[in-house]
């Protein structure tokens, strides 16, 4: 009887630990994105403005070395914004992803810098070439949106894009999923 009780307790502990592991939410590893994949997406977008796959509900604006991502969702939606830069044949993570939780207003907005901190130099480097932004919105466990928003292929293109934004109001690009 004693052994049976111990076995029951052990089994209960195993089940319990499995349940705990099941609820744990380890941070997903951010994998590099291949250049081929980005090019594949880029074919769908307005390269002239440096804006890729700009969805209807997400707004992008900038005047200098920073830009703002804004959008709408529902209360408690979670938004993850990740910046990548191109290294060889891959786009690798530029830093920590930014996570936002949408409040009762049902909107989110985030300013991000296009400047990249170079640990070898105390000064900030110029705007990175080939910057890629990935935005993901989760409603519960369901991914509501997952878009690649910008790719700046070179400095000139960035400047052109910035000037265009300075001179005229942004017109929403066609959304593609």
């Amino acid at each position: 009887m004693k052994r049976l009780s111990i076995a029951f307790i052990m089994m209960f502990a195993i089940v319990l630990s499995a349940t705990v592991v099941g609820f744990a939410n380890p941070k997903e590893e951010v994998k590099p994105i291949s250049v081929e994949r980005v090019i594949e997406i880029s074919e769908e977008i307005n390269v002239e403005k440096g804006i890729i796959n700009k969805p209807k509900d997400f707004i992008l604006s900038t005047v200098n070395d920073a830009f703002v991502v804004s959008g709408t969702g529902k209360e408690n939606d979670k938004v993850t914004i990740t910046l990548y830069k191109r290294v060889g044949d891959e786009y690798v993570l530029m830093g920590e992803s930014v996570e936002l939780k949408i409040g009762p207003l049902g909107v989110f907005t985030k300013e991000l810098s296009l400047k990249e901190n170079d640990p070898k130099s105390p000064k900030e480097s110029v705007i990175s070439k080939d910057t890629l932004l990935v935005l993901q919105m989760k409603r519960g466990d369901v991914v509501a949106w997952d878009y690649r928003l910008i790719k700046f292929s070179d400095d000139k293109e960035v400047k052109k894009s910035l000037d265009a934004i300075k001179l005229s109001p942004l017109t929403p690009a066609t959304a593609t999923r």
Partner: protein
Amino acid sequence: MNKGLVQNITIFLLIIMSLILLSIRFELFITTGVSTGSIADTKVSLPYSVRPNSIVLRLGAENATKLIDTNGVYYLEVAKVLESSLKSRTALEEISQQDYRKKKEEKSIQLNFEPAISQRLLYGSLFLEDGYFGDFGKISQILVPQNYDTSIYFETDDEKYIEVKNPTINNVSGFENFGNLGQRKYYSISERFPEITDNDVLISDEARLSSFVTESMFNEENIDAALRSVLGSKYDFANKISEIDGSTIVTYDYGREIIKISPQGKVFYYNKEAELNAKRTTATEAVAIAMNFVNAISPSQASYVIEQIEDYKEGNRTGYVLKIARRVDGIRLSLKNDEPAITVVVSNGRVYSLEGIFRTQKVEVDNNLAFGENAVLLMLEQNYDYIKGKEPFETTSELFDKIRSVEYAYVYSSDYNMIACYRMQIGNSTFFFKIENAEVMR
């Protein structure tokens, strides 16, 4: 000594003494203090005394920044253009909100007046004759284009849009340099969320403004100088009483003129002389007289702005009631109910009464790290239900559409400290949210 000679000397001395007393009574040979003031003295400084809360610089569509005009020097440049445009105006036309917004997409300077100011106050401050140029409410915004457009534009608090036409270009000198001040980019709400609103009110990401623990402007070293600058040489003949609670009361000529200063820096002034001698006073004169007086009584080099001027009438006596708010580093300071902390009544060419709070910063309280970014939206989210209770809305879109202005502000707390806030005009309600923690100040 000859009896007659003694009588003559006595009579002569009595005449001399009575002349001296009469001259004191009717202020013939003594300085009168500043209750009467002079427009000539304020010709240069008056435009500083009626100025906007903030100046928006637009260098193109959706490329805007906001200046906090700390000492009014930027506004002074704009005021010169404003004065000449209003003087030479050829026509006045009401335009649509849509047309007004289109004008705002071009290179321009936008002056934000919160609370809105009357046409008369604007005219008075620019030394134009008492102005009335249309059946519309108070002016909440003035747009001065910096391109080929020769008109200037007004937005009123009753949501009318007025084009004031004039033949010359409104070129504000040094405009291009205004922007070289390291100012932050300001976004319109519609730029962020065009799907749900077309509101062009500008907001910034940051909330960087310190609060202050304050103290009375008056202390043992400066109180006599402040009283003397108000009363002039009459102060030598005045009675001074120190009350148990620390208040100082000075009365001149058996209470004809009274000043009371409390330890908290509250000032009460009354001058019966203004009841006696009828004299017509224009709005411009009233503005000058009130500003002279407030600057004289204020011991520190504080900056004051006149926000309201209303007609005053009591019996046969007429004049003006002026509401004056202090600017702390260019930011408006008010009471919790949004009213300015100083009220002056000018009648018959002099200050009739003043009631106000005069306090100065003692210790700075840093709020800068309270909100990293998106301060305005976070404040709206944190106070969502409170705002909804005061100013009903169904959707966020409706709430955004109702936002009429977002400005930095200082508000006196119940213990008279200066609390850094965002002042938001939403619909017909004014909200103050503390920058420290987004709590409702009012």
